[in-house]
């Protein structure tokens, strides 16, 4: 069936949550879950009190609390005027009042006495040390402007890249003249956030052999940290994965900004590694700015496509993306593919829901 057309889903009634804890009680579990999922709101992570129920009277507390549990706050909603709360991110106190007001559209998060609003979706907010995938959008005299899905374009100075011919070489005017031979418009690269400027723009650097131009794979953009499902900060953003169905190893690179790169794993040259640290720089750099793909066999291409459709299905169903969910999702998808004769790798619609259910159900 090439086309499936659904009727629109009626708005599902909000799931009833257990009665919320008393206001004066501390909720330590929530602050823990914050650090666990790297600041991204995932489903079922918002058992919070909302503004209405905070200042309700004792009598009608019951019905108010059950009705407004998952309410989405909009900019300008008064959360509370009680002085015992502190305002956090996403809130403000209008002049001449004491009421904490939401400045974003999102859900309320309470950490002890701190009230903050988690936005429903947000742009990536760069932090120093983040591994990001970016796309060059502009080439300037001595630097590139890179799209990293943040509010502003990031900056990559020519002095912040590995120049060919060894890491210790000085930047020359020749390098500046041929700036497009390193990176030109549209090129994808992996880099690290080196520095943050006053206005929130980030400076990147690629001064490591792990970083540089990306090739031999496909790109997919999902939401980064901040929004709902998407990439979350974790211990490993880049790993190599064994694939099934006679595919070779693939690399999955989850940029913290929500840009993802899936590519064939290329074994680094053993001889070059044995030659010592300085020689290695030279031999590796001969390939580092290449935009020519290696030969990729068909089974590997299929597995790369499967991995990409797993990630798309996870995002569509609001599952966070990290090493664990992608690997488990991939193995589920391989099992799904064995069900049909022609090994269907598309995971949209119903199949995607099944995949997400299989992952969350365990």
């Amino acid at each position, binding site marked *: *069936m*090439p*086309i*499936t*057309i*659904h*009727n*629109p*889903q009626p708005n599902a009634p909000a799931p009833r949550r257990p009665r919320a804890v008393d206001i004066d009680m501390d909720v330590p579990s929530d602050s823990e879950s914050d650090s666990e999922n790297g600041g991204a709101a995932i489903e079922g992570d918002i058992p919070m009190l909302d503004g209405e129920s905070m200042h309700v009277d004792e009598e009608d507390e019951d019905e108010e609390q059950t009705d407004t549990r998952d309410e989405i706050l909009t900019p300008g909603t008064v959360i509370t005027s009680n002085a015992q709360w502190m305002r956090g991110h996403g809130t403000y106190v209008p002049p001449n009042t004491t009421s904490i007001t939401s400045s974003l559209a999102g859900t309320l998060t309470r950490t002890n006495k701190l009230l903050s609003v988690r936005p429903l979706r947000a742009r990536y907010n760069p932090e120093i040390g983040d591994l990001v995938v970016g*796309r060059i*959008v502009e080439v300037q005299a001595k630097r590139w402007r890179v799209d990293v899905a943040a509010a502003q374009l990031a900056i990559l100075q020519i002095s912040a890249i590995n*120049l*060919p*011919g060894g890491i210790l070489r000085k930047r020359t005017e020749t390098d500046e003249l*041929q700036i497009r*031979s*390193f990176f*030109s*418009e*549209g*090129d*994808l690269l992996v880099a690290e956030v080196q520095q943050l400027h006053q206005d929130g723009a980030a400076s990147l650097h690629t001064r490591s052999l792990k970083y540089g*131009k*990306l*090739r*031999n*794979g*496909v*790109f*997919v953009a999902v939401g980064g940290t901040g929004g709902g499902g998407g990439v979350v900060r974790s211990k490993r953003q880049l790993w190599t994965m064994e694939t099934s169905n006679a595919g070779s190893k693939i690399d999955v690179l989850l940029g913290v900004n929500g840009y993802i790169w899936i590519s064939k794993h290329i074994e680094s040259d053993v001889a070059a590694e044995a030659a010592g640290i300085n020689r290695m720089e030279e031999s590796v*750099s*001969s*390939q*580092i*700015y*290449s*935009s*020519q*793909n*290696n*030969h*990729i066999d*068909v089974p590997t*291409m*299929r597995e790369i*496509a*499967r991995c*990409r*459709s797993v990630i*798309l299905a996870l995002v*569509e169903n609001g599952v966070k993306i990290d090493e664990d969910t992608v690997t488990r999702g991939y193995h589920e998808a391989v099992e799904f593919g064995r069900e049909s004769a022609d090994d*269907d*790798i*598309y*995971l*949209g*619609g119903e199949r995607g829901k099944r995949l997400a259910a299989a992952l969350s159900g365990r």
Partner: protein
Amino acid sequence: MAQQTLLSPAELAYLHSSLTLSPPIRPDGRTSKQFRPLTAETGILPGTNGSARVCLSDGTEAIVGVKAEIEKTVDPLGGEHYQEYVKSASGVGGGDAEADRSAARGEWLEMTVEIPGLRDDDAGTVFLAELLREALLADGEFAKKLWINRRFHWRLYLDILLISPPLSYPLPLLSLTTHLALLATRLPRLKSEGDEDPMFDDDWEAAPFLYPREGATTGSRPSITLLVVAVGDSILFDPSKEELAVADSALAVSLCEVRTQREQGGMEVDSGRELRLVSMRTIDPPSRLTPPGVPSTANLAASGTSDTTQQKQQQRTEEHPQEGVWKAPLGGTRFAVLDSIMQAVLEKGGVADEVLDGLEGVDLA
């Protein structure tokens, strides 16, 4: 082209090589004739004569509203002549209604497309609106439906709104939404007769549909336009923006369904579906404007210096395309490719059949 997607030469080369395989491996894993799942509903705008909303799984969403207005038919030959013509015609006694209907004109349908982030006089938007309008009018039946009598006609305003930013070329989405909106369109029932000023029935429930439904209906249905992309020898339907970005050629194929009733052997009535190819337009694929990839051997940054041997190599590689290096497609669409596109679309049980079957399943409010 609506929007240029920025992709690196390595990405383009990878996508192109995976899509030229047989069978092609699409980046989202679909088969070559598979569409993205979509959600459709009709009758969402109470103030319109007909409306529809279609939402693709990638989040792009379109709304179409149809508004009808009565307008006096102005004779192109001048007012006085026309009055005389009307008098003489009514004196004779009505004349032949069919012949009058052929005076219907395509300009009675007005279409506007609005895409967020683009001006309404943007070339891409105007082209899109004209493309859809042309496909609707091309069957020659549509304008006749707007004819009321010799003095009045309906003027139909079709407003197409893309709500989300255009993630891919929105042509198929807008076309399917328009199709559904027109199927859901009703015009008030005419009470007056002949060439007198038109009077209409107040009862909205009694209003007939622009395209009559159910049972023994014959005649054409609103056309649909499909976007088909050819990469090498593979033919892909409903391309995503990445696929469009590496396409050798992109075609907008418009077809309309004509329902015919034939007596077969005097026994059963076969209300078969006849597909008519209405129009076919090439769309400039964005891949043609992409810069070519540089092979590693010719890359200055790879070695740091450029010398004469490398320049020779560079010249050589320009002649012979290397594996893994992106090269923008040149030239037109090959005839064999066109032929296989037509086959895939029009054959019995082909893509168009499946799409129309799917659209029939939509609940028309």
